């Protein structure tokens, strides 16, 4: 059975758990697949390492945590160092190029990097939507859910007043990832 594993990692407060939830929601509510989202985090509200895992499958999902990761997002150097160990050969590694300067020395990964947080700040206009920029990029790179369904999931997850901002963030993230992965 198809089983696709994604991990969104970084530091607490970057919105990566939210990004994981939206990805899983896109798959399970809008794409008609099955999905499980789980997370682990420390006691801190901000700071400390944080990860959110999403398993997507066409059938029932038993083990809800990652076994070998197909696609990993690392938004800090610490996350990149800590969470690439179970990324599978040929898997996708997306990093923020400003924050992750030391890429894994071993492992045959498809590495995509662009300044995610800076894109949110300068291209979208608000740093707070960096997680949605990253989500757009992960959607583009993984192809597990369609762009339309992912966008629906984003829009149903954010407050009314911020719909346009998030739509823009998602779209820019999606395009940037495609451009960066060529």
């Amino acid at each position: 059975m198809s089983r696709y594993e994604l991990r969104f990692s970084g530091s607490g407060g970057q919105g990566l758990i939210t990004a994981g939830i939206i990805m899983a929601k896109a798959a399970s509510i809008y794409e008609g697949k099955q999905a499980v989202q789980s997370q682990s985090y420390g006691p801190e509200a901000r700071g400390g390492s944080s990860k959110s895992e999403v398993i997507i499958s066409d059938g029932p999902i038993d083990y809800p945590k990652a076994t070998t990761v197909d696609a990993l997002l690392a938004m800090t150097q610490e996350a990149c160092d800590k969470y690439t160990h179970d990324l599978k050969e040929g898997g996708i590694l997306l990093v923020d190029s400003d924050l992750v300067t030391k890429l894994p020395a071993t492992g045959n990964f498809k590495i995509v990097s662009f300044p995610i947080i800076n894109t949110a700040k300068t291209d979208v206009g608000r740093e707070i939507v960096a997680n949605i920029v990253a989500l757009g990029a992960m959607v583009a790179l993984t192809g597990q859910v369609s762009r339309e369904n992912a966008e629906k999931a984003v829009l149903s997850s954010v407050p009314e007043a911020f719909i346009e901002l998030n739509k823009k963030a998602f779209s820019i993230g999606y395009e940037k990832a495609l451009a960066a992965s060529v």
Partner: protein
Amino acid sequence: MSKKVAFLQGNEAAAHGALYAGCDFFAGYPITPSTEVSEVLSAELPKIGGKFMQMEDEIAAMATILGASLAGAKVCTSTSGPGLSLKQELIGYGCIAEIPCVIYNVMRGGPSTGMPTGPSQSDVMAAKWGTHGDHPAICLTPASVQETYEEMIRAFNLAEKYRTPVMVMPDEIVAHMRERVVFPEKGEIEVVPRKSPTVPPEQYKPYDTSFGDVPPLASFGSGYKFHVTGLNKMQDGFPTTKADVVQAEEERQIRKVDANIDDIVTFEEYMLDDAEVVVVAYGSTSRSARYAVNVAREQGIKAGMFRIKTFWPFPDKQIKALASRVKGIVIPEMNLGMCSLELERCAQGKVPVLGIFRVDGEPINPDQILAKIKEVK
């Protein structure tokens, strides 16, 4: 018409399950990793005329739901390890005074403050033996978000049917993970109402066994007046030390559950027909077990899983039957060997019981279980 679906956390689903079951009163003290239950119910209960109370502590929360239940409300509280410890005396009070209530306890690392954000399954013995004295215990251990929703409804039903506290105990993984939930329509899942007295107030006794082992419970404020105490009591609710009455009442309280074990105990059998090795698992660990069993089967190993859905009362009969036909039992659990003691008791030395015990805040992964399956000769 298509059914309503949502992408929810186990805790959120538990709160919605409680609402489906008719919960109209919640008292609790927020504690990681069960706080989301309070968040949802504090928003939803006022909308339906229910009451949400954030209490000064865990003990007060337990006392308050017992009081509210006696006043006719369908009640629950939510907590985690340290809170469960604090609630124990009053859980015993609920058992002896026979007050329906649901305690939703998310299992995190322990003892004491332990690891608040880490998963564990180390409260399963506390669910039965945490409060002192002989008493009935019902404890459900769901393994998915949908099941957490449904088991909350069943917990309310069992609490009313047997007039006793019922615990729902997901581990932190089940409580915090998100999955799609399909909401049942109203009336699709049975909701058991409280058995009310049929006699007038002057003839009413709160523990009148002429109505069977589960006497009807009147609501305070409805004209029925009766005495409630934590002391051993007579049929009218007043304390007694009469040996024959105390013995009979204690035995009746246990019998409410023991005589109805087939109505209460639920489980899932997965690939057991020809299994030579059975993995017994509950909660999120059963999901790793299912994965491991599937891989074992691909490798030609005859493995299966017995998934415990109702931890208490323990499925003795089913485990005894398994122990007489398999070569070995594997038990993965996020504690240092609790369910494994029960399995050894049931297996009576007929087959080895191999444990995988983990208390480091990490889940037991399928590889660990597969390796243990292979140890069974």
